[in-house]
């Protein structure tokens, strides 16, 4: 397990290191969280796919408390979602996610048709922006400044402004 490649942030009152781009990223992330077109379960599947592909230790270790439909048995299906019994809407959401984080050329006419059959345009827009937001983890993973808060799983909550808060340990 790699340790931090630069010193970890020390001021918890500001986003990350408190630089102008840290503040701009935090404002963007909060604005995405405040979108309410997409259901919490789909959002959580997308978040966990990003976390697992990018190997973000922090994101992998938290669970959004709003996504009550996504239990650990469901989460375990994400790695091999195509052959899983997840429903078609979930699979198309994960294909859109993979088009964003793995290979944009897979966003073809078939994926477009499937996405527009199962999701509204507002939902598709939110899902794509969700992927950009969750994938901010890539900057932290590159520098390995994303330690998990504790062994095991923790609650992930968002306040009314869209700011993330890691909460109590999950049983």
């Amino acid at each position, binding site marked *: 397990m790699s340790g931090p490649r*630069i010193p970890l942030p020390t001021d918890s009152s500001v986003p990350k290191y408190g630089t102008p781009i840290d503040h701009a990223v935090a404002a963007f992330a909060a604005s995405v969280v405040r979108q309410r077109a997409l259901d919490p379960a789909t959002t959580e599947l997308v978040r966990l796919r990003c976390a697992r592909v990018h190997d973000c230790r922090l994101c992998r270790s938290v669970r959004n408390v709003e996504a009550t439909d996504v239990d650990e048995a469901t989460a375990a299906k994400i790695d091999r979602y195509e052959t899983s019994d997840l429903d078609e809407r979930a699979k198309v959401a994960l294909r859109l996610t993979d088009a964003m984080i793995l290979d*944009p050329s897979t966003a073809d006419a078939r994926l477009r048709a499937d996405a527009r059959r199962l999701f509204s345009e507002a939902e598709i*827009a939110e899902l*794509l922006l969700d992927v950009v937001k969750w994938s*901010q983890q890539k900057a932290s*993973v*590159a520098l390995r400044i994303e330690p998990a808060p504790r062994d095991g799983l923790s609650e992930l909550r968002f306040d009314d402004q869209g700011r993330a808060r890691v909460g109590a340990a999950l049983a």
Partner: protein
Amino acid sequence: MRMDSVAPPGRQALARWAPEPVAALAEVESVAAASVDATTLELVRRRVAALLGTTVPATGDAAAPLSPERAAALDDWRGSPLLDDREQALLTFVEQFVFSVSSMGDEEVAALLEHATAEQVHELANVTWAVDLTTRLDLVAAAVLA
């Protein structure tokens, strides 16, 4: 960060459905562009675009940060005498970031830290994310939403 004044089709489609996050993302791009020098930004933009199978808009600007010779060298940049050690470390980092950030090694970051402070490397990681994910977003949104 985009050099053209008109947003690409995918971004325009996104803005119709999610104007607030799209505006916030444009602000991220603007702040990111201001956080590194013009040559570094251009190297990141061109390399990310090439890795994702697209191109960056031509500026037609005689004061462009990369000469045509140096821009052409990006197609086969490893060991090119037209790119210095700092630029080669940057391009190595960008490639690993785009293809498989989970496989980034200590050595790629250590090479950057030979030429920059820890805070500058943090900024560079954020700039790379901004260019990487907005490029991906514009490609996918154009295909499925525009």
